[in-house]
């Protein structure tokens, strides 16, 4: 098992399925009256959030607490970061406080990698979203949700068709999803206006299309990405209405999906922009369930990164110390 989770590309098929299977077991905890396991008792998990994201932060917080870890929330606002403290000094401070895992959300692409590679902290580093780069736990919870609805629990997503629609250029969700879905054997089609596709997308293991209607009929899952209205001002597309007409998911388009297909969205949604309210609340929408599954998947990640090999080696170090004494 890996020691950090920086990129969905760090996970091979075995690791990915192990996380998803573990999450499957842990999902049951949420339905118990007492939603708590003792696994990470005495371990310290830091939520290091340089960017506002209440949803992701509380999901990680709930996951860590259900495993009995001590959770410290460190948000850039109201901390020394807003006074100009560097990422390095923040990390050294957390290290000095004995963080076993640092869950980092950062506006700068690559910041979690920098944190892990520069060895400013010894704890496990978990990427909770970095700039426009990656968001690996989102991809895991998406795959987890797809497995449950597409009859693939316990296995991979081989042969499944996943269509991802929207602002690919600025989306960390899509980068992680493409990597993980590829590892799990799914076939990914990306649909976006040409302005919102990155240069070099022909190197990605995906099919691309500018035509949403042509990409619906074979889809097992459709994932709508958030499109920020301010992209309009930067000439990525002419208007919100034109975007919705060409790339939004409405009931007419929903009706063209196969009967078993599910509708996903990483949230937060712009209702009326990339997805209509009817579709968001439709019986085939699994958007709320994605949130529930997020806690289970994050529990699995924390459990496997902190509770497994790392815990054993910590015990070994303890015994060595005793020998010396």
């Amino acid at each position, binding site marked *: 098992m890996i020691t950090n989770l920086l990129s969905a590309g760090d996970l091979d098929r075995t690791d990915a399925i192990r996380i998803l299977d573990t999450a499957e077991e842990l999902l049951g905890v949420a339905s118990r009256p007492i939603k708590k396991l003792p696994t990470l008792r005495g371990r310290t998990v830091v939520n290091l959030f340089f960017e506002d994201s209440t949803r992701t932060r509380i999901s990680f917080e709930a996951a860590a607490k259900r495993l009995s870890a001590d959770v410290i929330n460190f948000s850039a606002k109201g901390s020394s970061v807003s006074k100009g403290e560097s990422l390095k000094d923040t990390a050294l401070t957390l290290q000095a406080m004995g963080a076993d895992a640092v869950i980092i959300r950062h506006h700068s692409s690559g*910041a979690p990698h920098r944190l892990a590679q520069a060895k400013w902290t010894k704890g496990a580093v978990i990427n909770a979203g970095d700039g426009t780069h990656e968001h690996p736990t989102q991809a895991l919870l998406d795959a987890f949700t797809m497995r449950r609805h597409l009859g693939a629990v316990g296995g991979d997503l081989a042969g499944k068709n996943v269509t991802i629609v929207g602002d690919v250029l600025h989306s960390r969700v899509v980068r992680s999803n493409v990597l993980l879905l590829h590892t799990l054997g799914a076939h990914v089609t990306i649909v976006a206006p040409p302005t919102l596709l990155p*240069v*070099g997308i022909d190197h990605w293991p995906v099919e691309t299309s500018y035509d949403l209607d042509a990409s619906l009929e074979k889809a097992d899952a459709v994932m709508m990405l958030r499109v920020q209205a301010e992209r309009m001002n930067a000439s990525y597309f002419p208007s919100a209405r034109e975007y919705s007409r060409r790339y939004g998911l409405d009931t007419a388009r929903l009706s063209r999906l196969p009967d078993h297909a599910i509708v996903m969205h990483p949230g937060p949604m712009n209702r009326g922009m990339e997805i209509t309210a009817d579709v968001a609340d439709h019986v085939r929408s699994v958007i709320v369930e994605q949130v529930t599954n997020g806690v289970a998947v994050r529990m699995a990640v924390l459990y496997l990164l902190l509770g497994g090999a790392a815990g054993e080696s910590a015990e070994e170090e303890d015994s060595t110390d005793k020998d010396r004494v």
Partner: protein
Amino acid sequence: MSSYVIRGARLLGADPTDIAFDGGVITAVGDGATGDVEVDGTGLVALPGLVDLHTHVREPGREDAETVLTGSRAAARGGFTCVHAMANTEPVADTAGVVEQVWRLGREGGYCDVQPVGAVTVGLQGAQLAELGAMADSAAGVRVFSDDGKCVSDAVVMRRALEYVKAFDGVIAQHAQEPRLTEGAQMNEGPLSGELGLTGWPAVAEEAIIARDVLLAEHVGSRLHVCHLSTRGSVEIVRWAKSRGIDVTAEVTPHHLLLSDDLVRGNDPIYKVNPPLRSNDDVEAVREGLADGTIDIVATDHAPHPMEDKECEWSAAAFGMLGLETALSVVQQTMVDTGRLTWAQVADKMSTKPASIGRVENQGRPLAVGEPANIVLVDPSAKRTIDPRDTASLSRNNPYSGLTLPGEVVATFLRGRPTVRDRALVEGSNA
């Protein structure tokens, strides 16, 4: 001042011979020359003192990163006897007062001639021409003008600048970067920028400005210099412009000759530079361009930064890398050891031509009797493993850390006076 004779050095890489100099002037070239101090040149290549057209010395304003003195000492260690100090200091070198201060600090240091570059526009703001004539007429005798770090992006301002400096034989050295196409840019735009989610700096943003500028230079009959050209398309545009007889010169940096954008994958901002490291195909294109003469010179773009501006996440880091102490080694590795340039051509591209573009009269001269004794002795058989701490610069942002590079400067003479001897700086050079 002592007289010297260098015994048995390979003049521009040719057969071993002797070079004698006295009072700052070369007095004899050929077997049997004499002097008070004998310098063993066995196995060494003698080149004219190197001239850098593109150095950031950070003084005034950022003396924590580099000063004129420390930059000069780094230059001497790299074999340079003259550097052009870029104008993007704090305050900006956009007045006669600032350029004279930098020029004077260089003379006081005595490790190399420091030739200030004047800003094209007031405060590098791209709107109003700085007093170019006053800088040209100052003691510093400025001939190279550049807003380097920023592009003179307004076509009318660029046209006027190109025209105006004709009155004193100046040149505009353009940092070619279309600003709107590079807002927030972090690295070369290509497959890797898409994968890493870093905002791309597309080649076309450089090429579009170079294309516009060569056409402007042709239209008004002016001299244009292109700073740190980095893409295949830029090489092709300059090649086309030269074939039309347009008076354009171009430079490439050592790092664009050696390094490519796959280094960004590790997220270490030591590799963050502007223009960014490009693709391997671009690296090959700039090597070709330098070999066939499309690119006239190598210039370092030596850009010191304090540690904290590199020890951070990528997007927060400063652009730039050191270059003075490694430039000749990188050129040897990429161009000489590969058979693409002779040492005589290296002398042309790192001494003669840059001095000529900058109109520096007493630098970049031939190693011949009666010429100034600006000489560098290089040991091409040496191998150095680059250690960022082994530097005369105040900064450590060295992208070659850990690489083994060929060649080492054994001695540098500035007007007959050694600034480097036995591979080490001579302390108190001006004494």
